[in-house]
């Protein structure tokens, strides 16, 4: 907003300031990505060693073997599910945060919301491992309440993956939503209620449509992050979970087939970019419909 007029700021030639970052990102982000892309077109020899030359066989494997393409579909489905869960769970929390006036309770709630962001993903996930283990709280509650006769195998299950990933990414949905809800004009609520709408109707017809930008931001961030997350599902779900991040990790750390791992990860990147763009498009249409 202040930088629009060229030649007026003290930093007319501001690119000097950006130079170190550009050099750093080219050297450690772009070059590795390009080299990885090149690797994904390499044939493999004995012991999965990458050979010189060009081939599409790695991509052919990725798109014909169910072990690989199945994981891509499962990952996209999981990311979508997690994004929906995060938005649904974020709403009450963000609403409570946005309506609370500054004070001890609000600070405490805010710390709870961002605490997952400030603790290692390993720590957060380990908490779930403990909660969901055979002797964990959840299982003992299930047995104690008579819902099950014996502890269930919760760890290394797909629901455990969804729960833990949702937990890890939830703050990314709550924060933009809190900002959006906090910016709403309270007079609109009052207007709606004076005109005879109850709290539920006001919420659905006034609050939700107006907070949509926050919902969209949160959902897109959560979706994109859920596509690439691999440590959390690996720890709670185990190495056999059919998710792409875990498959790539497995190819690299136990099979040592780098080229196919590279091809699979670029397929994941492409799928992430395309599906995020599609989602953003859908949201834009939806928003336009809502606001006429």
């Amino acid at each position: 907003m202040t930088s629009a007029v060229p030649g007026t700021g003290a930093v007319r030639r501001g690119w000097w300031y950006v130079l170190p970052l550009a050099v750093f990102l080219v050297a450690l982000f772009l070059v590795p990505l390009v080299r990885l892309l090149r690797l994904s077109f390499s044939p493999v020899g004995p012991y999965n060693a990458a050979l010189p030359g060009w081939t599409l066989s790695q991509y052919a494997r990725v798109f014909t073997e169910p072990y690989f393409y199945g994981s891509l579909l499962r990952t996209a489905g999981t990311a979508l599910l997690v994004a929906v869960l995060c938005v649904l769970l974020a709403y009450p929390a963000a609403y409570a945060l946005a309506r609370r006036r500054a004070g001890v309770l609000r600070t405490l709630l805010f710390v709870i919301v961002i605490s997952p962001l400030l603790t290692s993903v390993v720590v957060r996930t380990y908490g779930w491992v403990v909660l969901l283990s055979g002797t964990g709280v959840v299982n003992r509650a299930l047995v104690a309440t008579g819902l099950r006769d014996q502890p269930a195998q919760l760890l290394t299950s797909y629901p455990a993956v969804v729960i833990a990933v949702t937990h890890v990414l939830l703050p990314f949905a709550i924060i933009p939503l809190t900002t959006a809800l906090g910016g709403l004009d309270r007079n609109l609520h009052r207007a709606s209620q004076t005109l005879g709408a109850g709290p539920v109707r006001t919420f659905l017809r006034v609050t939700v449509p107006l907070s949509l930008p926050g919902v969209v931001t949160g959902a897109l961030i959560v979706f994109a992050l859920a596509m690439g997350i691999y440590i959390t599902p690996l720890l709670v779900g185990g190495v056999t979970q059919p998710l792409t991040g875990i498959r790539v990790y497995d190819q690299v750390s136990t099979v040592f087939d780098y080229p196919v791992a590279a091809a699979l990860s670029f397929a994941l990147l492409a799928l992430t970019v395309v599906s995020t763009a599609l989602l953003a498009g859908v949201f834009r249409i939806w928003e336009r419909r809502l606001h006429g």
Partner: protein
Amino acid sequence: MGERAYDRAVRLAGVALAAAVFLFLIAPLVVLVVSSFSPTGSMAFPPSGFSLRWYAEVLGSPDWQVSFRLSGLLVLLVVPTTVVIGTLAAYGLAQGSFPGRRLLTGLALSPLMVPEIIIALGLLYYFHGVGLINSLPGLWLAHSLVALPFVVRAVMVSAAQLDPVLERAATSLGAGRFRVFRTVTLPLLRPGILAGAILAGVTSLGEVAVTALVAGANTTTVPLRVFSAVQYQLDPSMAAVSTLLMAASVVVMVVADRFARISEAL
């Protein structure tokens, strides 16, 4: 009257839902903290008593001491690196006007949106070629790459609100470009820089996704050691380490919250 009761019921339901979500967010962390004080080797919750034996075990173990030192050293390296590079860049991107500014902004933030497994794999393959696998410089660069976008984004929030008139005033009063930057610009960017520094430190302290692939036997950071251990065993010593990691983050955050509003930078 009936309408009032209905209103209250709706509001109460909302509060209950919100409380459930907050409980969901905090539960795994609380369980860890509580079980870290378990007197026995089991992770049963609630524990049967209170003891500090797992803390003593962890803090007395040479392996863990090496990891703690390494993680601390990395934070000390990564925070200044990313703060200097990130602050300069955020200032240039928010206030400068030059061709390709939007493209560069996109590039600066893109490591946030690229799946972490790709960054990890890319660095693994690249570092293999240049001999940086299982090395301190390798981890320094890798953590800096992951933390940089957070710093850029945090400082850009402050830099976008900066009024260039203040800098022009200083210039017209005879201050050189460096002096203007040091005495006018930097103090105005302080909240963003501080928030960025915290995020960078916390990111480095907790990073596993990339570390798991580029580190090695000689460079096992604290979260990486937890990561490998959790896959094979569950004992309260890991909960003790996790609690220590959390405590480090909380202390940094509480101290910093007095100076900066991290909420705005996220």
